[in-house]
């Protein structure tokens, strides 16, 4: 194989894997910016994937299926919102519970599908004229399924909402200093509910992309830790949607090394080593980006802290 073909193949896989991570990361950024830490991403993603798979299998319509995934993510994240915003519980524990709930529900509902080996046709790619003729970048970024394009658009939309609208300003101030925001007349609870449910819906959609795009059949544990990597990517991207774009594709690239080295017949290191890379890299990234210098300036100051209104 010539190097250009290898590079193009790598980039195509990178965009596929990266876009899944990107949508979930964007969702979690939106949630965390309001001060709510949702560690349920893995569960939301998995439940979203299952819901879209079922709806796509029944209706054959990917838009309906994606909406179902969004609804599934929204429904589960509302539980987290209720427990952590209204009942002011420990958000870490609640998030873990949501993950276990999402994975359990998916496995419970998906069992007949897994046993009968139901298959769906993956979403078809849509070529973007002109842009898709570029070398390497063209076939990888501009010849993908519509949900991948949605992930690019969401970067811009979320960045715009967070930094250029009044609602975004309110949302960020609720995440920084909720009592100040409250005294300025911003509804802290409502804002956090909205941020958590929109974020959850996006996590569901990332599950839809995962299964509608690349996995023709359902099996347990299909998300394979991607939700957790997305949570780490939020720190990596300093809670900024624009940086999330680069972070997600960087991780996407690492996630594809296994397949790439297998396809070119590289046998020096066991391929299982490459399977551990995304997880190893996540730890390395956390070490680098968690140190005070990087994080303290960017992290929403009230992240993970419940807000109680003073009487």
């Amino acid at each position, binding site marked *: 194989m010539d190097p250009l073909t290898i590079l193009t193949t790598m980039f195509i896989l990178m965009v596929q894997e990266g876009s899944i991570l990107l949508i979930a990361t964007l969702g979690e950024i939106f949630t965390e910016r309001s001060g709510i830490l949702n*560690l349920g991403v893995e569960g939301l993603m998995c439940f979203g994937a299952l819901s879209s798979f079922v709806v796509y299998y029944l209706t054959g319509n990917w838009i309906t299926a994606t909406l179902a995934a969004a609804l599934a993510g929204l429904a589960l994240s509302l*539980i987290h919102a*209720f*427990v952590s915003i209204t*009942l*002011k*519980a*420990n958000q*870490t*524990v*609640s998030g*873990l*519970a*949501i993950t*276990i*709930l999402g*994975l*359990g*529900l*998916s*496995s*419970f*509902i*998906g*069992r007949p599908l897994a046993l009968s080996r139901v298959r769906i046709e993956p979403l078809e790619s849509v070529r973007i004229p002109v842009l898709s003729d570029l070398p390497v970048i063209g076939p990888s970024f501009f010849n993908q399924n519509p949900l991948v394009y949605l992930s690019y658009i969401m970067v811009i939309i979320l960045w715009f909402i967070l930094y250029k609208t009044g609602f975004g300003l309110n949302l960020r101030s609720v995440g920084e200093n909720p009592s100040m925001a409250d005294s300025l007349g911003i509804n802290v609870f409502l804002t956090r509910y909205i941020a958590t449910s929109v974020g959850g819906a996006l996590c569901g959609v990332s599950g839809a992309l995962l299964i509608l795009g690349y996995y023709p059949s359902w099996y*347990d544990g299909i998300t*394979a*830790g991607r939700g*957790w990597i997305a*949570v*780490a990517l939020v*720190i990596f991207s300093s809670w900024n949607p624009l940086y999330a774009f680069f972070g997600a594709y960087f991780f996407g690239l690492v996630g594809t090394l296994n397949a790439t080295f297998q396809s070119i017949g590289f046998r020096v290191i*066991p391929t*299982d080593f490459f*399977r*551990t890379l995304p*997880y*190893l890299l*996540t*730890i390395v990234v*956390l*070490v680098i980006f*968690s*140190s*005070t210098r990087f*994080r303290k300036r960017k992290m929403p100051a009230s992240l993970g802290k419940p807000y109680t209104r003073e009487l």
Partner: protein
Amino acid sequence: MSFAISLASIFSAFIISGIIFVFSNVDPILAYYNLFKSFTNTALLSEAVVRSIPIMLVALGLALAYKANFISVGGEGQIYVGGIVITFLVLWNAENRLLPGQLFMPFAIIIVFLFSSVWGIIPAFLKAKFETNEVLTTLMMNYIAQIISNYLVIGPWKDPKGYGFPHSPAFPEYARFPLIPGTTINLSIFIGILASIVIYIILARTKFGFEVKVVGDSYSAAKYAGISYTKVVCLVMAISAGLSGLAGMSLLSGVIGRLRPDFSPGYGYTGIIVAWLCNLNPFIIVVGSIFFGGLLVGGEVLQSSMGLSVGITDVFQALLLITTLSGEFFKRYRLVWRR
């Protein structure tokens, strides 16, 4: 009042799962009967106790970590590390024959504990030095440990006489925990019971236990009192991971008898739920683990008799955790009814 709230929390979890059963066209009464069948039948109860051993060991370790406010979710990975170490020791001794049979298990328990501790200290050290989020680091390490364990069992440690099946050679008799006569329960349950007493003593009676609680309550108070955060979390995680490693050893030496791919069905995650639901109390954890062991057996009964996925036990566990967490709200804030 607080007992009533706990009961109400558990009851709500039952109601919500009941609704899920109804929606999936299953008679909820019959489903619950099957889910708790272990507690009506001696053979199944013995099986429930067998399942409870790894859960107990993981949950006890996690309770100690959670007391220090170190939210480890690394039990699952540490189970795999424990499994890797005990398999290594078995293979090593089979080749070199350095240890006589009677000495093997005591030696193995110490080595498994120590190596798993080292694995557990890594995220503690990273948190102390770089403020990395321990939930994420311990979780990532779970995936890494499981991949390594599966690599070993499919690759270099595969049984040459195993007809190509992906498992290690069977452990010899001296590397197995003996069974309590008349039951399927192996002796590693006493490690669990001993651990619960030790954890209780550490927390209630020692200076270190006091430091753990101070660190857990307030990072800055600990710093002000001259307690080393690094020392406390590293030690806490060494013990926590050591116990989870023993859980892995107890699974292989007590139940399975060899290393297999994906040998833990998520005991590390069940341990998290048990630790929180039992309010981090070491004695309640022993009882709670048996209850959850029964629930896991019940899940399998449900799957084989009614064709439901074992995933329903995860759903039930998660719902229990969520309702209990919600119940905390009503314990903390007294509701006042006003006209």
